[in-house]
């Protein structure tokens, strides 16, 4: 059953009570919350995801977003993210309850899912090949990711690239895409107002934050892993010409190792998986200033047949 088949009242009731069981990519979640904006966010953004009955179930992560105390429900209201009885973060203002859920879910995965090498990067796929987009905050990665998935690319993930240690394939986790500040109007315009972006939260540590609903097709295919083909470092520079420039494989490896959440936890296997990945991909720096040109450049890449690689 899909989440959208639950009435909003039913959803809210369950969230306040035993919680809802939800599947996102390889992970099952049990979410509890009595905060209205959380119920609203789930209704708006998770309609296509599978929900299940509570009875005889196993959930990978038990999480809740709730007020820390009765007092804090009314006076400078705050919310806590709770992971099975533990509080990994300080409380946040009530207005940020929904993004806090998203950040908390990212934390759960990056702290625990060591069956994957987890790289802090977006990843999208077209024609059976995946492009990994690592980038420091503020580089426009999320805007580019959003534009690509609005233009026919499949969303695999906007934050956490999961590389299966056994197969080297990328496992999708197509949760809502987070957009910040200027990205929000830019993507709205780019999509001709067709993309669904939820109500923004303001004054967060990252500024104004909102989330975009993942494409239906991406969610439908959330259990289909993909072959990595490119690692592309995007950088938006005002007025820049669209340019794809080859990049050192060794230095790309080092960057990924330093920007993976759990590279060092995996020991020698982290090195093995990382070098195997680099051996399968072409590495590029990508400069752009026009979103539609950027998308065209990516499309061109996807349409170029893969070259044979020396093993």
């Amino acid at each position, binding site marked *: 059953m899909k989440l959208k088949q639950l009435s909003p009242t039913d959803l809210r009731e369950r969230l306040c009570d035993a919680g809802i069981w939800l599947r996102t990519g390889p992970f*099952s979640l049990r979410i509890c919350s009595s905060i209205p904006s959380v119920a609203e966010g789930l209704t708006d953004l998770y309609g296509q995801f599978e929900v299940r009955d509570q009875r005889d179930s*196993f959930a990978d992560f038990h999480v809740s977003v709730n007020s820390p105390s009765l007092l804090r429900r009314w006076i400078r209201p705050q919310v806590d993210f709770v992971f*099975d*009885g533990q509080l990994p973060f300080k409380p946040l203002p009530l207005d940020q309850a929904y993004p806090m859920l998203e950040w908390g879910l990212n934390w759960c995965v990056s702290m625990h899912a*060591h*069956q994957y090498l987890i790289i802090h990067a977006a990843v999208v796929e077209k024609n059976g090949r995946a492009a990994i987009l690592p980038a420091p905050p503020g580089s426009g990665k999320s805007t580019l990711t959003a534009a690509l998935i609005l233009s026919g690319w499949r969303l695999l993930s906007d934050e956490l690239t999961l590389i299966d240690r056994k197969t080297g394939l990328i496992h999708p986790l197509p949760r809502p895409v987070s957009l910040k500040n200027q990205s929000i109007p830019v993507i709205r315009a780019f999509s001709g107002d067709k993309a669904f972006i939820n109500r923004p939260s303001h004054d967060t540590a990252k500024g104004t934050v909102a989330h975009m609903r993942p494409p239906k097709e991406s969610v439908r295919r959330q259990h289909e892993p993909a072959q990595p083909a490119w690692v592309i470092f995007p950088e938006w520079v005002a007025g820049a010409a669209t340019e794809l420039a080859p990049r050192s494989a060794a230095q790309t490896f080092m960057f990924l190792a330093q920007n993976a959440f759990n590279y060092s936890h*995996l020991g020698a*296997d982290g090195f093995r998986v990382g070098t195997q990945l680099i051996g399968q991909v072409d590495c590029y720096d990508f400069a752009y200033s026009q979103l539609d040109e950027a998308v065209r450049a990516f499309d061109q890449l996807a349409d170029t047949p893969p070259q044979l690689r020396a093993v």
Partner: protein
Amino acid sequence: MRQANFLLARTLRTPDMTTRFSLTQWDLLVRQARQAGLLARLQDRLSQQALLETIPQPVRWHFDAAATLAHKQQIAVRWELGQIRAALDGLDCPLVVLKGAAYVAANLPAASGRLFNDIDILVPRRLLNQAEAALMLAGWNATGLSPYDERYYRRWMHEIPPMQHLHRATVIDVHHAILPDTARYFPDPQKLLSRIVPAGDDMPGVYVLSAEDRILHSATHLFHDGELPHGLRDLTDLDLLLRHESAAPHFWPRLMARADELQLGRSLFYALRYAQHFLDTPVPAKVWEDLRSVTPGRIVMRLMDSIYSRSLAPAHASCNDTFSPLARQAAYIRAHWLRMPAYLLIPHLFHKAFISPYLDNNTPKPA
């Protein structure tokens, strides 16, 4: 005393009961084990009993991921011990490792499936300053404690404040005794040092406490250190140490004699009692007789049972009852009372409760 009956305890005692688990039971087990820091150890137990393949597919990765972490940490501890040995090369004493790192150094069963926070070493008091200086030279520095906490460590505790390495972020606790000077009991560190043994051929220059002393230290640590976030895990250490050593001839009489000599009989009594309660650790009947002189009276015993049956359980909602918060607090206070006299204890607890923030925001360590 009836045995602990929350799911994790029952599973540790009888791992093959998992073959009959529903998904809901697996769900609860994983959560209790994670809270207790025992996921990796449970994986190890299931693996030893050839039960890994019977874990349902959606559940399995939690155990494998924990095992990955534990395996990596063992490698890291070994490396770190080598670095420490090099740093303390000039010191006129052997490098003696305590607790978890010692289990790794000596290749004991108690090392497997274990996660490590810090590395604990024992240094004679007269060499403490020199050791601290040598470690600082090699990149370890006292961690950012408040001035109050730092004074507390230096004056009253049996260790200098934890030192963290600049690059590797590993933490060393340098002890000069296993209990503070102010404690009610004083196990002479010189006696401990006189019986140290080499860790093994693959760890030259590294020493550990003798088998009996390791066990007594584990028991003492449980009942004298205030923090019990991993009480059950520490009990499993003790359980593994005992099962491994008790095969040796005359082990129990030697252990009793040593406990007596070091004045640690009562800690040992409690440790054995609760190891049996949670983990069914085999203890010969004669041992209880020999410990009669340190066995508390019925009333005190009942009180201790109600405190420790709760405070040693994992701090997970499913393992708690109404009295658990009080029990944990009582255990904390008792441990501190054993370490410090009352006139020092009250200001200290006041400070901890109201001045240092109570809710610390350290990320919980994955199991």
